C-alpha cells in the first residue's frame, strides 16, 4: 500500500482508499492477535534458542591465590590459576568447558599439595561476578579468604556464563545423546510406514467396499484420539510385559524399547492417518474407474493407476503428519521406551533429571529440525494438490462383491480388535486389585487421592483446562482466522499472521513447554505472574493446537462468499455485526469442531504442559504419566480411561449439540 504511494509516479491528484473505522478496528484486532502469537510462541522460542547458546566455562584468570611457606604465615605473591596452569599444564582448553553445574577442584594446580601440610592458602575472586565454593558455601565477593590446606582442598571453582556453540559440540560428541537422533528418526519412519499402510487399507475398506458396520468401524478408528499417547504404552506393559497376558507372543523379545514404541505409535497415530487418507479416497471420480473397466484393466492395474494416484496427496500428507507426531511424542517412549533413548525423552531427562536446561534447549533445537522439515515438505506437497473433483466428476459408488467385502470386513475387524483391545486391556487392568497375584475386581485403583500425581483434583483441573481452552481458544482462533480471511488490503500483515498461525504445528510440545519456562519465568518479564497458573496452561495449549484449528476455521470461512462483506458495507453495517449475526451462525459447525478438537487435545496433552503445571494445576494426563513413573501402573491406566470416557462423553454432547444447533442455524443449507 504505502509503496504505491511513495513510488515515483508523476504528481497528480491522489486517490486514497480511505480506511474506514471498520478497517481500523479489524486491523487493530488482527495486530492484537498477531501480538498474542508473537508473545506466546515467537518470543519463547527465541528465549530457548538463546539458552541453547549459553555455555559455561571456567575462567582460570578470574581467581588469585597466595601460598604460604611451611610456617604458614608468609605468603607468596598473588598468582592467578591461569598462570599456574601455564606452568603446570594441568588442564587443556577442552577441560574448561562445563555445564551450569560444573565444578573444578583447585588442588590439581599444586603438584605438591598435601592436605596434612601446615601450608596455608589465600584465595579471592578478581571480578565482582566471580564465584567459587568452599565445600558447598558460595563465595562471590572479592575479599581474600585464608584457608588451611585441609579446607583448601574443598575449594571448587564455578564456571562463568559464556556464549557459543559449545553445547552443540558437547551434544554431538556424546554418543549417549546424539544416538537419539538416529533412534528417533528410525522409530518415526517405521511407525509411519506401518500406520499409513494399515490406515490406507482401513480407509479403502470403508470407502471402496460394501462391507457392513462401516459406521461402527469409523467410530472405532477414531477412539485412540481420545486418550493420551502414553495409554497404549500402559496397555502394552499388561499385554507383553514380563507378567503380560500375551508375553509369549514376543518370543522372548522385550516390549520395553523400539517394539513397544512402534506398536504404541501405530495405535495413537492411526486416527490421524485414517482421517487424512479417507478424505483423499473419498474424492474419487467414478468415470476413471469406468474408463479402466472399459479398457479391460485388471483390478490390480486399476488400483495402481487410478486409486493410488488419486490418493497420493492424502498418503504423503498422512505420512508426514504421522512422522511428526511420532518423533515429537514424549509420553509413549517415556512409558515403554526402556533404555531406548529418543529425543523427546532426552529433553525431559536433561531438564528434569539433571537440571541441565542448556542441554535441554540444545536437544529441543535438534528436535525442531526434523519436525519443521516434515512440516515444510507437507505444506509443499499440499500446495501441489490440484482439484481432482471437477464439476463433471461422478462420485464413485462401490458395488457389492461378496468375497472382497468379506476380506475387507475381516481386515477391518482385525484392526478394530487391535484398537479396542488396547483400551479394553487398560480398563481391565484398572479394575484388577493387584496384577498378577490377586485378580479379583476392585475400585482401589480409582482412589487417586491416595497416590502421587494430583488425585481427583487433577482430573477436574483437566476438565477446567479443556473447557477454558475450548472457549478461549475457539474465540481467539476463529476471530483471528476471520480477520485474516475477510479484511481488506493489509497484505503484509495478513501474510505474517498466516505464517505465525502455521508455525505452532511445527513446534513439538516439549519444545514449546520448555521455551515457556525460559520466557515466562524470567523475572524481567512482566508476564511472569502467569507462571505456575492455569492461565499459562491455557495459553500454552491454545498455542500448541493453534494451526489445525486455524485451518479448520479458514476452510469454513473460505466457503463464504466475500460478497457478504460487500453487502454489509454497502448497507453501512459494521463488519463486527456481520461477524456476529451472519458469519458465526453460518460457520457454527466448524466452530463446534474447533472447540471439541481443542477440548479433547487439552485433556490428552502431556508434552507441552509437563514443564508448566504446578501443584494447584496438576492435570489428569500428567497424573497418568506421574503415576506410571512412580510404578502405580494400574491407577495410571484407571486415570487414562477416565480421560477416555470424558472425551467420549464430550464427543457425544458435541454430536447432540451440533445436531440441535445445526438444525436451527443451518436449515438454509437444505432446500
Amino acid at each position, binding site marked *: 500500500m504505502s509503496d504505491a504511494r511513495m513510488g515515483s509516479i508523476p504528481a497528480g491528484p491522489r486517490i486514497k482508499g480511505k480506511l474506514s473505522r471498520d478497517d481500523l478496528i479489524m486491523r487493530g484486532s488482527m495486530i492484537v492477535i498477531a501480538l498474542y502469537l508473537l508473545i506466546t510462541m515467537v518470543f519463547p522460542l527465541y528465549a530457548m534458542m538463546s539458552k541453547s547458546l549459553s555455555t559455561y566455562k571456567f575462567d582460570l584468570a578470574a581467581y588469585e591465590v597466595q601460598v604460604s611457606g611451611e610456617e604458614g604465615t608468609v605468603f607468596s605473591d598473588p598468582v592467578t590459576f591461569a598462570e599456574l596452569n601455564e606452568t603446570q599444564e594441568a588442564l587443556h582448553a577442552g577441560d574448561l568447558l562445563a*555445564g551450569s553445574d560444573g565444578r573444578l577442584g583447585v588442588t590439581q594446580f599444586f603438584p605438591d599439595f598435601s592436605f596434612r601440610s601446615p601450608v596455608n592458602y589465600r584465595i579471592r575472586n578478581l571480578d565482582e561476578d566471580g564465584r567459587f565454593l568452599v565445600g558447598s558455601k558460595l563465595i562471590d565477593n572479592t575479599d581474600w579468604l585464608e584457608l588451611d590446606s585441609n579446607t583448601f582442598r574443598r575449594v571448587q571453582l564455578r564456571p562463568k556464563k559464556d556464549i557459543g556453540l559449545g553445547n552443540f559440540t558437547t551434544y554431538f560428541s556424546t554418543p549417549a545423546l546424539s544416538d537419539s537422533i538416529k533412534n528417533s528418526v528410525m522409530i518415526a519412519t517405521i511407525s509411519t510406514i506401518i500406520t499409513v499402510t494399515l490406515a490406507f487399507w482401513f480407509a479403502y475398506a470403508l470407502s471402496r467396499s460394501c462391507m457392513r458396520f462401516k459406521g461402527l468401524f469409523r467410530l472405532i478408528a477414531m477412539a485412540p484420539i481420545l486418550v493420551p499417547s502414553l495409554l497404549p504404552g500402559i496397555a502394552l506393559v499388561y499385554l507383553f510385559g514380563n507378567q503380560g497376558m500375551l508375553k509369549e507372543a514376543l518370543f522372548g523379545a522385550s516390549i520395553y524399547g523400539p517394539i513397544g514404541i512402534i506398536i504404541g505409535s501405530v495405535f495413537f497415530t492411526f486416527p490421524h492417518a485414517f482421517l487424512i487418507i479417507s478424505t483423499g479416497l473419498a474424492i474419487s471420480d467414478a468415470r476413471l474407474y469406468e474408463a479402466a473397466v472399459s479398457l479391460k484393466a485388471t483390478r490390480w492395474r486399476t488400483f495402481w493407476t487410478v486409486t493410488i494416484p488419486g490418493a497420493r496427496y492424502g498418503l504423503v500428507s498422512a505420512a508426514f503428519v504421522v512422522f511428526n507426531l511420532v518423533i515429537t511424542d514424549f509420553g509413549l517412549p517415556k512409558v515403554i521406551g526402556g533404555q531406548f533413548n529418543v529425543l523427546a525423552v532426552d529433553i525431559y531427562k536433561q531438564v528434569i533429571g539433571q537440571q541441565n536446561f542448556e542441554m535441554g534447549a540444545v536437544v529441543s533445537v535438534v528436535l525442531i529440525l526434523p519436525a519443521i522439515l516434515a512440516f515444510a515438505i507437507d505444506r509443499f506437497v499440499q500446495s501441489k494438490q490440484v482439484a481432482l473433483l471437477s464439476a463433471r466428476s461422478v462420485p464413485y459408488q462401490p458395488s457389492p462383491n461378496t468375497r472382497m467385502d468379506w476380506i475387507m470386513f475381516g481386515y477391518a475387524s482385525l484392526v478394530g480388535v487391535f484398537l479396542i483391545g488396547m483400551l479394553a486391556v487398560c480398563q481391565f487392568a484398572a479394575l484388577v486389585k493387584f496384577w498378577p497375584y490377586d485378580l479379583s475386581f476392585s475400585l482401589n485403583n480409582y482412589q487417586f487421592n491416595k497416590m502421587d500425581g494430583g488425585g481427583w483434583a487433577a482430573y477436574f483441573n483437566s476438565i477446567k483446562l479443556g473447557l477454558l481452552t475450548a472457549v478461549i481458544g475457539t474465540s481467539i482462533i476463529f476471530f483471528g482466522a476471520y480477520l485474516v480471511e475477510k479484511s481488506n488490503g493489509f497484505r503484509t500483515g495478513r501474510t505474517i499472521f498466516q505464517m505465525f498461525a502455521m508455525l505452532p504445528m511445527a513446534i513439538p510440545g516439549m519444545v514449546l513447554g520448555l521455551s515457556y519456562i525460559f520466557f515466562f519465568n524470567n523475572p524481567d518479564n512482566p508476564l511472569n505472574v502467569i507462571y505456575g497458573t492455569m492461565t499459562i496452561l491455557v495459553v500454552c495449549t491454545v498455542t500448541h493446537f493453534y494451526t489445525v484449528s486455524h485451518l479448520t476455521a479458514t476452510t469454513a470461512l473460505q466457503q463464504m462468499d466475500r460478497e457478504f462483506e460487500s453487502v454489509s458495507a454497502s448497507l453501512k453495517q459494521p463488519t463486527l455485526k456481520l461477524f456476529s449475526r451472519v458469519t458465526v451462525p453460518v460457520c457454527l459447525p466448524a466452530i463446534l469442531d474447533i472447540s471439541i478438537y481443542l477440548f479433547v487435545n487439552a485433556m490428552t496433552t502431556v508434552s507441552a504442559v509437563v514443564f508448566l503445571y504446578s501443584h494447584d494445576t496438576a492435570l489428569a494426563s500428567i497424573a497418568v504419566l506421574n503415576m506410571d513413573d512412580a510404578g502405580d501402573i494400574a491407577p495410571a491406566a484407571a486415570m487414562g480411561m477416565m480421560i477416555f470416557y470424558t472425551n467420549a462423553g464430550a464427543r457425544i454432547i458435541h454430536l447432540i449439540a451440533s445436531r440441535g444447533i445445526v438444525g436451527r442455524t443451518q436449515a438454509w443449507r437444505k432446500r
Partner: protein
Amino acid sequence: MKKLSKVLGGVALAALMATGALAETELTVYTAVEAVDLPRYKEAFEKLHPDITINWVRDSTGVITAKLLAEKNNPQADIIWGVSATSLLLMKSEGMLEPYKPEGVENLKKGFYDSDEPPYWVGQDAYVGAVCVNTIEAEKHGLTMPTSWKDLTDPMYKDMVIMPNPNSSGTGFLDVSGWLQIFGEDEGWAYMDALHENIARYTHSGSKPCKLAASGEIPIGVSFAFRGAKSKSEGAPIEIIVPSEGVGWDMESSAIVAGTDDLEAAQKLMDFAVTKQANEMYNQSFAVVAMPGIAKPVEHFPEGLEEAMIDNDFEFAANNRARILEEWQKRYDSKSEAK
C-alpha cells in the same frame, strides 16, 4: 471486538486471581514429600501457628529441584520442605538458601544438619537404599536371596535386576554415590560394570523398581526401604534386603529460600521441623529420623537399617555430581539396543 475484549479481560482476570493469593501469612512450600503425608504436617503446624497457612507445591525431587533452579532469579517458594539434602547442597552452592539456626537444632544427630554456622539446611529423616526382592518370582526362577551388593552381580540374576537411572532419579544417584564411597572410585565403577550386565533396564523414578518387583514384572528392584515397606504393607510378596556392605542414603531436609517475603513465618516452620513432635511424625513413615531416641520401629522396615547406613559425604556427592553423572551416562546410557 466485544468478544476479543472479553477474552482479554478473562485472561487478565485469571492472571489477577493467580497473583491475588499472596496474603501476608501464606507460605509457599516446595516439597517432595509423599502426597499422603502432607496434610498431617500442615495440620500440626497450622495448629501451632493459626496465622500462617501452608501452600504445598509438591512434585518429585528431580522436578522440584529443576523448578527451584529454574526460578533461581525469581524464587516462587518461601521455604523448601522434605527435599533431598543433595539437592539442597546444590542450591546452597548457588547462593539460593537463607541460613537460619532453628531453635533446638543441636538436639539433632550430628550430620543431620548443615555444618555451617548458622546452618543452611536441616535434615528431617533419612531415606535409605534397599533392595526389594519378589519372593514368588525368586522361587519361580530358582533364585537364592541376595544378601550383599556383590551378590547382585551373580550371572544367576541376569536381566532380573532393575534400578533407577541416576540421571533422572535422586534414589539412583544415592545408590551410585553410595557404591563409589563404599568401594572407592575404581572398584565402584567396576562393580557397576558388572551389575550393568544383570540390569534389565533403568527406570526414571526411584520408587518404580520396588513397585515393579512387587508386581513381579522384574524380580529384584534396587529402590529404597521406605518404598519397600509401603509395598509390603499393601500385601506385595516382597522381602526387603539391606546389603551387607552398607547402603547409600539421603535425607529429606528443609531450608529457607533466600529472598522470601515471609522470613519470620518461614523460620517458624524451620523451628517446627526440628521439634520432637515433627520428628515423631516423620517416624510414621521413616524408620530413621534426625532426632536421636525418637524413632520407633516402623512396620515392615528391615532390621539393622540405621547401622547399615554409610558415613555419607554429601559434599562429595554434590561437588562430584556432574562428573559422576557424565561418567555414568558414558558407560551405561549409550546402550541403545533393547535388552
